[in-house]
């Protein structure tokens, strides 16, 4: 069953168009990646899905419901959890407050992510429990952003550069965690430059170039296609 479907999305910042007919789809339980160089529109795609920069053209459906024109909070409530680019931690809340302020049991109401379980995932956060958001190091903020999204117990988890600025060890832990999540049937949309790690867990990759999807396929065909990798990802 399709979880999220984008059809011909067009998005603008003011007058300047950034997405030119972006289409992609994510099935339930799938891990999908969005790849591409800087400034190609990956984050913008996410912002359109979340209703933060609503699409002016095209249609977005989430679990059968049209969410194109819904306000962000309704989309989040419908079951999408976001780890945004740039962390966006609340500076004047403590770590724990950041986690519980927006926590939710999820749409099914039996969410399994709780304070205990995210602290288990990121012990460093528990150590910094009472620190204010603006006192955290860059990496600690990143962990908090991920934990915060998990605490909403989403149907679909979106990670936009979620491993940026994290120590290698933590990065590995996050990949391991995503692998576990996938095993539990969590649907995930992920943006990251770490192709190797992505290839191991993703079912499907989309490559974005100038606001469009230019290539799509699974890890095997991506690995085989070094021309594509070089041309669109610069590796």
């Amino acid at each position: 069953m399709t979880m999220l479907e984008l059809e011909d999305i067009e998005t603008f910042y003011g007058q300047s168009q950034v997405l030119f007919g972006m289409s992609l789809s994510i099935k339930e339980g799938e891990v999908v990646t969005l790849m591409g160089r800087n400034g190609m529109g990956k984050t913008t795609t996410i912002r359109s899905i979340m209703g933060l920069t609503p699409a002016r053209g095209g249609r977005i459906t989430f679990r059968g419901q049209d969410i194109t024109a819904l306000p962000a909070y309704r989309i989040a409530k419908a079951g999408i959890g976001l780890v945004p680019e740039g962390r966006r931690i609340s500076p004047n809340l403590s770590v724990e407050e950041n986690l519980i302020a927006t926590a939710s049991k999820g749409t099914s109401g039996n969410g399994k992510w709780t304070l205990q379980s995210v602290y288990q995932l990121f012990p460093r956060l528990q150590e910094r429990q009472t620190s204010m958001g603006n006192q955290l190091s860059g990496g600690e903020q990143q962990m908090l952003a991920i934990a915060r999204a998990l605490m909403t117990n989403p149907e679909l988890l979106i990670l936009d550069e979620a491993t940026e600025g994290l120590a290698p060890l933590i990065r590995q832990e996050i990949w391991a965690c995503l692998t576990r999540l996938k095993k539990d049937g969590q649907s995930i949309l992920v943006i990251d430059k770490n192709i190797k790690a992505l290839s191991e867990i993703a079912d499907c990759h989309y490559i974005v170039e100038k606001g469009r999807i230019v290539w799509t396929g699974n890890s095997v065909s991506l690995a085989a296609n070094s021309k594509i990798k070089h041309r669109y990802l610069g590796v």
Partner: protein
Amino acid sequence: MDGLLLLEQVLNGFQLGLLLFLLAAGLTLVFGIMDMVNLAHGSLYMMGAYFCATFTGWTGSFLVGALLTIPAVFLLGVIVEMIALRNLYARDHLDQVLATFGLILFFNETTRLIWGPIGLSIPLPEFLSSTVEIIPGAPYPVFRLAIILMGLLVAGLLYFIVARTRLGMLIRAGASNREMIGALGINIRLLFTLVFGLGAALAGLAGLMAGPILSVEIGMGEGILILTLVVIVIGGIGSIKGAFIAAIVVGLIDTVGRSFLPEILKLVLSDDSASTAAPAISSMLIYLLMALVLAIRPQGLFPPKGVGK
């Protein structure tokens, strides 16, 4: 300076401080926590007083009037927020100052249009307009005791809400991080509207408490607004605790300063120059206090955690 008089003046200062706090609470909530400079807070305070006077007139009872006033001002706040202010949260303070200054003009003149220029009065019921003798030889108005009580009540309640509840966290988070909190599933627009309404209701409460003693008239909000701004700046913008302490300090300094400054100045100046200098200095006292506090602590006495550096 005899001891009983000093005691009475301290009580007076405490009461003025708590009245200021009633007003400062709503202001600091909207100002500090939602990061919105709302100069029209004084106007909402005025509306509280006018509504209460009107409702008291209709119903013949101050208590009923007061109970009707609070939801009415809440509603007014919500309407104002929806029409004029909700698009200003993301703007800089200058824009907010200007727009809400526009609101002050609008409210003052509309009030004059509706209620006329003369002002109203709020008659108090018998039991509130009497006095009790808590300090021997100095009967104290019961209504002023009621103000003290109300101030303490609001302080406790607000502190609890903002520091302890999830609602409080969301309000604090929303200011710095509006978009993100929305993307995490919170209807921030509604939340802000409600919080603004809460701020308005607090202003209205202050107005209906102040109305019976400070008189109800056009422009009553401006003078006290400045005083209130001074209070929240001294206390550290956005800090309920800071507003509370600063309000009481300002109330005490103002009252005690006013009553004993001439005597104190006479110790160093001639009688004549002391009595001319005293009123001028006492007018400046709270500004001096603010300048002093900010010169030493540029963020006020109790800047809330996690804002700025």
